[in-house]
């Protein structure tokens, strides 16, 4: 189930230094068989077959793998220390050169090393937040949809409360409480306000599949509640949740940049794309590359997640076949 999806979802960390491997067919479809003959009918198998021929999935997926490898193994990409900074000797805001590929930052740090190490912080926040909203939102939606009656009423009202709070303002209120903010508190704020949409998606999928004949049949055959959920109801909800989570992951990368820019995110000793944008916002006219590099990383990564999410949605929706 998870295997064919892995290149799109950040779990694709297995082969970070060999991005080309991602484009290889899954083991389920040996290269000898021609398409059409001996097809599996599974949704995921079909989706994977469609996805790996789709350039608007493969290219962003490779980009995500590259950024993931920067996050996991930054030393593969640079041997410089992002925090070895010096402003003496005119090292501040140097333009790109052979020694400093992206130039140097306002504090005289190597900007390329900062961009590589920044990937780790930004991806970590986004990944933790996405896992958090999927677990919490999935659980709340599942309970509300499956048990119905007062459980549903209560959980739906709680969802409404959080959904009604404006995302950005809620996150700022939440973050100002904390004295020292790091990537974990930022992820916590994003989770606290971001889980509602997944809960709604999950609840709707559970409600729509709860009364289907095959679920009723499994129930009539004496299927335990846990088995009913895990084997019959959950697989129906996986596709929309995976699609939303992929796009949300990209959104959280921009959210980190936005919250940092507003002054409630990370602060300078920390290295992240948001911090890089925030610190160099004022030098836009003199040294545009100081903004261009982190912004391209953020936009490229978000763009990749949105494209992968879109491709997954098309591939996983049987109605669009």
């Amino acid at each position, binding site marked *: 189930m998870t295997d064919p999806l892995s290149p799109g979802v950040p779990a694709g960390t297995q082969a970070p230094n060999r991005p080309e491997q991602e484009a290889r067919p899954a083991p389920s479809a040996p290269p000898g068989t021609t398409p059409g003959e001996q097809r599996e009918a599974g949704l995921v198998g079909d989706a994977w077959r469609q996805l790996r021929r789709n350039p608007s999935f493969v290219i962003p997926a490779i980009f995500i793998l590259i950024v993931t490898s920067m996050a996991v193994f930054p030393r593969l990409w640079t041997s410089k220390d992002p925090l070895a900074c010096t402003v003496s000797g005119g090292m501040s805001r140097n333009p790109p050169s052979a020694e400093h590929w992206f130039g140097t930052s306002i504090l005289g740090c190597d900007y390329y090393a900062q961009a590589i190490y920044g990937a780790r912080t930004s991806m970590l926040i986004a990944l933790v937040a996405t896992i958090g909203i999927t677990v919490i939102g999935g659980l709340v939606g599942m309970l509300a949809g499956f048990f119905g009656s007062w459980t549903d009423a209560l959980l739906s009202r709680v969802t409404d409360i959080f959904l009604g709070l*404006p995302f950005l303002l809620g996150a700022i209120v939440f973050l*100002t409480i*904390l004295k020292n903010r790091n990537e974990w508190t930022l992820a916590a704020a994003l989770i606290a306000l971001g889980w509602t949409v997944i809960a709604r998606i999950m609840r709707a999928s559970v409600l729509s599949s709860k009364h289907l004949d095959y679920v009723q049949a499994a129930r009539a055959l004496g299927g335990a509640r846990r088995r009913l959920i895990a084997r019959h109801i959950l697989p129906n909800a996986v596709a929309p949740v995976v699609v939303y989570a992929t796009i949300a992951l*990209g959104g959280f990368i921009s*959210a980190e940049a*936005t919250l940092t820019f507003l002054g409630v995110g990370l602060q300078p000793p920390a290295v992240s794309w948001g911090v890089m944008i925030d610190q160099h916002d004022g030098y836009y006219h003199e040294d545009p590359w100081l903004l261009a590099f982190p912004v391209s990383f953020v936009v490229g990564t978000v*763009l990749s997640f949105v494209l992968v999410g879109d491709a997954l949605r098309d591939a996983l929706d049987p109605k669009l076949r």
Partner: protein
Amino acid sequence: MGRYVIRRLLQFIPTVFGALFLLHYLTSVAIQLTGNPVRALFGDRMPPESVLHNLTERLGLSDPCLEQPFSPCFGLFVERLESIFLRFDFGTNFNLRPVTEIVAGAMPYTLRLTAIAISFELVVGISAGVLAGLRNGGFWDYWLKISTVLIISVPVVVLGVVVRDFVNIGFGNWLRGLEAVPDVISRGVFAPTWTPNYPWASLIVPGLVLGALQLAATARLTRSSLLENIRADYVRTAWAKGLGHGRVVGVHTLRNSLIPVITLIGTDIGALMGGAVVTEGIFNVPGIGRQVFAAIFTGETTVVIGIVTLLVLVYLIASLVVDLLYAVLDPRIRYD
């Protein structure tokens, strides 16, 4: 219909109370952990104990539970509810200016900004979506796909800063150098930031930036929902009857396709007003986003609670109106 509206309005009550309590708890914990925010008013001078005490009391922050970390302060919450709902008193900020007055002063700017953003979404978003949906797989379709995905991927902060620096300052400076361009354009629409001389014109660019993000979502949703409906049997029937192109697309297809789009825009109103924090900050618009943002940092709890509760109410009412509009757009939907 009437009963449905009443039932929905009754459902508002727990949601509003819940949101109020959540805000009350978060802001109380902030005070419990960081200390009395009133002290900050005095800077580095140590105020006499009696002055500090009186001012804290006057601002409604003297409850002893505000000194016990993570205490839920139920007593203070009930007091706040009483003053808000029974006396319609939202409290004051630290300069003793009533919150209602702050909101009344700032609201028009945010409303105008939201109105510009939403009309931009409606006009440009829906037309782009229809254009792309009708030419599925064609040039316009790809163009829409690429441009919307790009807009979605740019953080609103970056979009705002780039637009301000490039369009309002760069292009604006060039326009201001030309004699032939009227002032409304060069010093109004393309003013570097919001200016009181042109209160409407200088809101246009910030409004477009605010609407850009949702514009992409609107266009994509219009396109996919149009594509879904254009294959429907009743559309084929309409073609078969020999109806004109405009009528089939404009009335038969579009009317049904707009239902999900209306939902999106309805739920956006709340998000836009809250999301205007960034846009208002970048373009220096004195709207409620600026007020609440400043209040969060100075610890002016009453302002935060007042404004955010108002935004929650706007969101709830907008989603109710959207649900009622469904019945107008789709006669199959009945509420009773």
